[in-house]
């Protein structure tokens, strides 16, 4: 029968797993979520850290108390600790363990609401943001730069220290656009354009991925994001314009078909392609699609009403 030794072994097991996990999490660059390279990711990493601490305030003492109780009150001959089989209620204790969790949950709620609001707007106000229109397809990513009038497939380039407003939609099953080192993800939804603000503070190449299962080619839907200084970004735009074909409606029809493709780029994009994609899957039913005003006319044309 498991005795003191078993219990001890069990305790060691759990604590050591925990320790390994914690130690490795703090020291390694591999834990990209905890090593953000931009303000949005930082807000989230801090929140993760703080919420973890708040939880540890309750979880660690409870774990210790638990092992203490199991050890102290185990049934073995000669155990002198008190035995009160009828003791089954204590108002003070009840108040404590209803009360403390309520307080902690209140703290966590406040933090949650605060950061939810923070992440609504652009990460920094003083720099002019750029917009990138992201479309998830089966099974590739189409990135359109409406201001630069270029498009890429399966790779992204963005300027450092510039807030990027990603407008996300999908012309395939629901997907999710995630660049862990820059910040959390958001779903790309058919018929809806949703916004995700991100910003990079360091030049580098980061891992981006699809994060909501979309069928057979889902595993292949990851992409590189390189962040470069402003000047290099402009140079890159020029280069894309100079060395690639324009992106046509026919190209898009081809791209929509389920397939796995490599990276590519285009020197121009058809006007209002993104709006067309959104609307074709039911975009007009959402008040909040932020292109509503400017796109009114072409929508009328497309949908015939």
């Amino acid at each position, binding site marked *: 029968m498991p005795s003191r030794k078993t219990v001890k072994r069990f305790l060691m097991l759990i604590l050591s797993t925990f320790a390994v996990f914690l130690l490795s999490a703090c020291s390694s660059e591999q834990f990209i979520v905890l090593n953000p390279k931009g303000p949005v990711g930082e807000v989230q990493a801090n929140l993760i850290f703080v919420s973890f601490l708040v939880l540890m305030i309750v979880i660690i003492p409870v774990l210790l108390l638990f092992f203490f109780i199991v050890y102290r009150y185990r049934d073995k001959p000669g155990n002198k600790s008190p035995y009160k089989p009828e003791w089954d209620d204590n108002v003070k204790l009840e108040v404590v363990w209803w009360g403390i969790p309520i307080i902690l949950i209140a703290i966590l709620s406040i933090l949650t609401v605060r950061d939810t609001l923070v992440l609504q707007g652009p990460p920094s106000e003083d720099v002019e943001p750029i917009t990138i229109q992201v479309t998830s397809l089966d099974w590739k990513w189409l990135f359109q730069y409406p201001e630069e009038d270029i498009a890429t497939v399966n790779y992204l380039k963005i300027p450092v220290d510039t807030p990027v407003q990603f407008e996300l939609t999908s012309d395939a099953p629901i997907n999710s656009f995630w660049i862990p080192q820059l910040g959390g993800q958001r779903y790309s939804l058919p018929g809806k354009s949703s916004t995700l603000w991100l910003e990079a503070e360091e030049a580098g190449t980061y891992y981006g991925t699809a994060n909501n299962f979309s069928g057979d080619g889902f595993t292949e839907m990851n992409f590189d994001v390189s962040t470069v200084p402003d000047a290099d970004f402009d140079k890159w735009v020029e280069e894309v314009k100079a060395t690639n074909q324009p992106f046509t409606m026919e190209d898009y029809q081809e791209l929509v078909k389920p397939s796995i493709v490599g990276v590519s780029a285009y020197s121009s994009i058809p006007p209002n392609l993104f709006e067309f994609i959104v609307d074709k899957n039911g975009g007009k039913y959402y008040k909040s699609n932020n292109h509503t005003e400017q796109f009114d006319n072409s929508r009328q044309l497309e949908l*015939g009403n």
Partner: protein
Amino acid sequence: MSQSTAGKIDHHNEEEHHDTSSIKIFGFWIFLISDLILFSVLFATYVVLRTRYSGGPTGAELFEVPIFVAETFILLTSSFTSGLATLGLQQGKVKTVINWLIVTVVLGIAFVGLEVTEFITLVEEGATISTSAFLSAFYVLVGTHGLHVSAGIIWMISTIFQLSRYGITEETNRKTQVVSLYWHFLDVVWIFIFTVVYLLGVM
């Protein structure tokens, strides 16, 4: 009416006699409440999709006031008559019970008939279940109610059959009560369809 089902030992010989009828009726209430949730999801679906016409017709264009008003009053009346049937049950008059149930069944059939004609007209006008999300939601909400009513009709007929065969026994008494509960419930659901789908649709 006090006779127990043929071939059974007298019930009250038993040490712990749970009242079977009241337990079954209680269970049926719980079932009705879960059915209410089922309809609420269909209502939610209708509310969420109600403006998604996808270029197809709108509610105001489709719904015909006389038809849905007639449907409503037929169903209201049938709820009343099925209530009168249970009243007959308490007075122990099999004939009354059966007659009112037959009236209820006839009204029910009239209701379903009107609804089927309505659907057929709509489909002929080209407004099918695949025309738009709005119409999908409309057909499935109203149609599910219609299927419930149809099931109720069959059930009521089988109850009438049993009543005429066995008279009012503990069993048939319970079965009649339950089917009439079900019927009232369908009336309640219809009132909300009338309000949410038709009245708001033509508004």
